[in-house]
């Protein structure tokens, strides 16, 4: 099989599993199960990144999302109500309208995407080079200010979260 066909196979498998996982998040009746499905989806997304040659981001995805955010969510679930209850993740009264909106959204986005002629580069293999080095150079170069601001943002969020969630 050619590289392309390996890539295609990998893509379709990952994509298929991702859709199933996402549906699981929204449909599973227990919220803990939904959280686990979310972990599953994060892993798969990381796989997509690898497929696209963005290895640094793939790693970052695992570390932050799977590692930190998932833990955060699990803590929140555990700290709030009976997480193992069979009805802890129900649907609310407007789920039908929500379905409609979601379908419409997908429809319009897909239409947009297939109509849009996004100019693409002729050689995509260059995107599989030393991405991490390039990213580092970018972050420390042209994007130094957003980088620093992001740091401040994280500090603020940290302090904010502590203050809000404090027992007083």
């Amino acid at each position, binding site marked *: 099989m050619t590289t392309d066909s390996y890539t295609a196979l990998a893509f379709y498998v990952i994509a298929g599993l991702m859709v199933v996982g996402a549906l699981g998040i929204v449909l599973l009746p227990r919220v803990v199960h939904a959280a686990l499905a979310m972990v599953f989806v994060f892993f798969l997304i990381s796989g997509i990144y690898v497929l696209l040659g963005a290895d640094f981001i793939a790693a970052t995805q695992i570390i932050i999302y799977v590692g930190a955010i998932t833990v955060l969510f699990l803590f929140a679930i555990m700290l709030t109500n009976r997480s193992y209850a069979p009805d802890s993740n129900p649907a*609310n009264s*407007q789920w039908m*309208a*929500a379905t409609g*909106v979601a379908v*419409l*959204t997908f429809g*319009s*986005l897909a*239409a*947009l995407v297939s*109509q849009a002629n996004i100019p693409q580069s002729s050689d995509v293999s260059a995107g599989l080079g030393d991405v991490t080095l390039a990213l580092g150079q970018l972050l420390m170069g042209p994007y130094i200010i957003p980088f620093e601001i992001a740091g401040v943002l994280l500090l603020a969020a940290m302090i904010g979260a502590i203050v809000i969630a404090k027992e007083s």
Partner: protein
Amino acid sequence: MPSYLWLIPALPVAGLLLILVFTFRRPRISGYIGIAAVGAALVLSIVALVGLFGAQGAGRGPFITTFPWYQAGTATFSLGLLFDPLAAAMLVVVTLVSLLVHIYSQGYMDGDPGYSRFYIYLGLFTASMLGLVVAPNFLQMYVFWELVGLSSFLLIGFWWYRPAASAERPAPSAAALKAFVTTRLGDLGFLIGLLILFSQTHSFDFDKIEAAVKAGSIPPAILAVAMILVFMGAVGKSAQFPLHTWLPDAMEGPTPVSALIHAATMVAAGVYLVARAFPLFSSSPTAMLVIAWVGGFTALFAATQGLVMTDIKRVLAYSTISQLGYMMLGLGVGSLAAGTFHLVSHAFFKALLFLGAGAVIHGTSGEQNMFYMGGLLKKMPVTAITFLFGALALAAVPPFSGFWSKDEVLSATYNSGNWPLFIFGIVTAGLTSFYIFRAWFLTFLGERRLNPELAHAVGGNDDHGHGGHAPGDAHESPAVMTIPLVILAAFALLFGLVGSPWAHGAFQSFIAGPGETYGEINLPLATVSTAIGLLGILIAWGFYGAHWFSAEALTQRLRPIHTLLINKYYLDDLYGWLVAVVLLGLSRLFAWLDRHLVDGIVNGVAWLFYQVFGWAFTRAQTGRLPNYALVFFFGVVVIAGVVVGLPAHP
């Protein structure tokens, strides 16, 4: 133009302000201030008048000075002064009669609680009338016209706290309101006419409008309409038919007021308007015809009602309406001189008659019904004789002034060829002498007939300080009241001579300029009119003097006519019905429409928004986050759809 001219209207204003600020609680001093102010104005007016004697051509004016007051677009509105022989004569008449009334009121209003207020109002009136006389344009004239109307209202309603004196007489406040509203109707026509003139000439100034009329730049039909509308103002102010109903009721005011305003000056303002704008009126034959007919008809119409009145002041009121009709008739047939001559002559003898009536009322402690008088010749001889002079003047008996001026009017009518109006004039002359001598005989001759219902001396209109005489005890008036009577009696006798052939019509040519033959007697005409006048006196003597005939019997025989006359041809009832049913009915309809339709729409819209939209939008605030998110994303979808659906840029 005399440089002191502005002082003439200003002095009474100064007087009234002084009274208002300083001497309101010192009534005697208020009276003196009023007299001093008007007296000074009189002196200045006489000086100004004399300055015009003998002037010819351009020396006769009109002299006009104005200063601009307000500018709107291309039109400039100005205020100022105008001086010419007509104005000069009017200034003297107004200040002279006003002064005599001021002096007379010292006696008549003595003891009245509103004494100072009275002199303030008198000053206001005098100043307004003088301002009207010297107005150089219609705008200023209209302003002072309204001020004069206001003064009249204040003075008629002077005793506003009094109720109606009897079933036939209204309360002073009601009478004042009626006067104001009725003249206001006339003023409406006046204003519309002025606006039409303005739209044609873009000016209110007399000389500019005159020039436009002479140049023929105003279409005759429009000019006629405008001038007839302007004449409506005169109809109201001068109590001509059909706006005459307010004048008899205005007799509820103090008698000096009746003398000054409703005999000599304010009601003459309408005549003055026609005289002032005479070049405009005479350029429209239609308007002149209207004026002549209104005047002639009113003269006859009012005289018939004077025949049956029992209240002495009301006889004089209808007489005033009738004589004003003569003035309008004179002007309407084209003789500025005749109308103006009768205006001045009438001012003197009518003021005399009213002040005399006031003396009678004062002397009988408030009796106004002639049928309860009698025998007053012995009790108040000065009053009786001066009143007689006035009566003779009114009846146009030579050599009294009324003869010369009425003769001028009649011969002008005769010369114009208008037979019906001439007949009206002659018949009215007969009726006039009859009703005035009926009044004189009833009041002064015979024995006193007391009102049986009055067991004590209760005042009608005239309840002031010195009550306490027994009924039937009439007395002569104090000197402050009799001296003006004597002065006016002298004028009534002698004034006519300035317009007589011996003076070669000096008055007429003074007013109207040389160029016509004035002061010539049409001997046949004069003889006929004098004979009719004397006949009227004789018939009155027959009924009320020597009692050859019985008035009651005649009244019985002609009861339908008598009822018609004594009910004033039911005009008051008609007008009352019009107002109550038509006007108020319409008003109620419009009020209903406003309340239910207009307000209904407004309230309905508010209700719609509140109930319907408000309910809907309120229900949308569910407070539930998922609802909000749903709507939010639905909006995103819509926008995405629009973007997708948009055609691509070419």
